[in-house]
């Protein structure tokens, strides 16, 4: 396992494959995406009314997931976001750790870059360990994922965990073609509520 964890950068996980695996057989999973590449990755895996894509509100994805998971305790909620977005709202991990919602998973696609703004290195490129932060905040499950086998395990955990779950998935920093989902917030919120609650407003 140590050998795998030290795999060279060129063998890093493909973020689109990671998201496709996490969302395979998604059943009634509710998904919130952080702005930028994670939103495109989830759109590439297939647009779905149970996806709520953020196109802004940087730093808010995990907290939006907490509010949703609280309102819908019978549904699994998955937040898929990037390292830059997570770093902007790091306090959310403390807030979620204090609340401990059993149905919320946070997956950070960690390319160690601000890809949207030119690929500048983020704090995780300088050694900041997001899984350690999450563990310190009280997430019973907090891991760093580096292999396809670990992504498969994570997929099953996201769909079945009984505690707040955090995973930082180290992904290849390659800039991929953008797959753009709808970006009108009123439409996205209305569509999400219609599918979940049977009422848009």
């Amino acid at each position, binding site marked *: 396992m140590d050998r795998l964890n030290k795999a060279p950068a060129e063998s890093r996980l493909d973020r689109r494959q990671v998201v496709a695996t996490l969302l395979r057989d998604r059943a009634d999973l509710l998904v919130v995406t952080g702005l930028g590449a994670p939103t495109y990755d989830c759109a590439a895996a297939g647009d779905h009314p149970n996806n709520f894509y953020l196109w802004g*509100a940087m730093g*808010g994805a995990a*907290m*939006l997931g907490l*509010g*949703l998971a*609280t*309102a819908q305790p019978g549904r699994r909620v998955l937040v898929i976001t990037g390292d830059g977005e997570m770093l902007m709202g790091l306090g959310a991990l403390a*807030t979620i750790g204090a609340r401990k919602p059993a149905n919320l998973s946070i997956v950070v696609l960690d390319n160690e870059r601000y890809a949207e703004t030119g690929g500048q290195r983020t704090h995780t490129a300088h050694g900041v360990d997001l899984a350690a932060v999450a563990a310190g905040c009280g997430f019973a499950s907090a891991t760093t994922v580096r292999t396809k086998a670990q992504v498969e395990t994570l997929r099953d955990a996201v769909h079945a965990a009984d505690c707040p779950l955090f995973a930082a998935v180290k992904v290849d920093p390659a800039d991929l073609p953008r797959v753009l989902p709808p970006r009108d917030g009123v439409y996205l919120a209305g569509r999400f*509520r219609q599918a979940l609650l049977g009422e848009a407003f």
Partner: protein
Amino acid sequence: MIAPHEGSDAPARIDWPAQIHEALRAWEVRQVGYVPDAGHSRLIERCHADPQMVTTVLTTEEEGVALLAGAWLGGQRGVLLMQSSGVGNCINMFSLLKSCRMPLVAIVTMRGEWGEFNPWQIPMGSTTPRSLELAGLATYRVEREELVRETVEVALGCAYDTHCPSAVILSQRMLGRKKWTD
């Protein structure tokens, strides 16, 4: 050093935190996010004790905006309790409300105005109402305890009947000056 005193012209006291709590219950508010403030302490205690409400203590106020956006997507109403200094922390996150036409009610206790002792509270306190208005929230200011409940109900109606986010500003004069001598 001058010892500040409580607001002077205080008539019979109204238990306005209890009235806010009753209004929140009447409007079926289920999620309460807050950064503690002395002015909100009794209301926070009541919300904690209410089995119909889930309370979330936040590390910073903008977390509450995203929290309540998620609550709304999941079919629940919420309120955000904070001090005026927290309004500044929320500004970019408020864009969620306008972009997605989401309701939210913030109840803001004022600092930096009536009888303020701490000069560091002045910059944000003096710009809090205009900041809320610029961010697109309808703002309702309360100066007198007997108007608290009605004002909170109006703000809840504004948000949940018309989908316009709103804020109730509880004035520092009504809250009473902060005592530094206890």
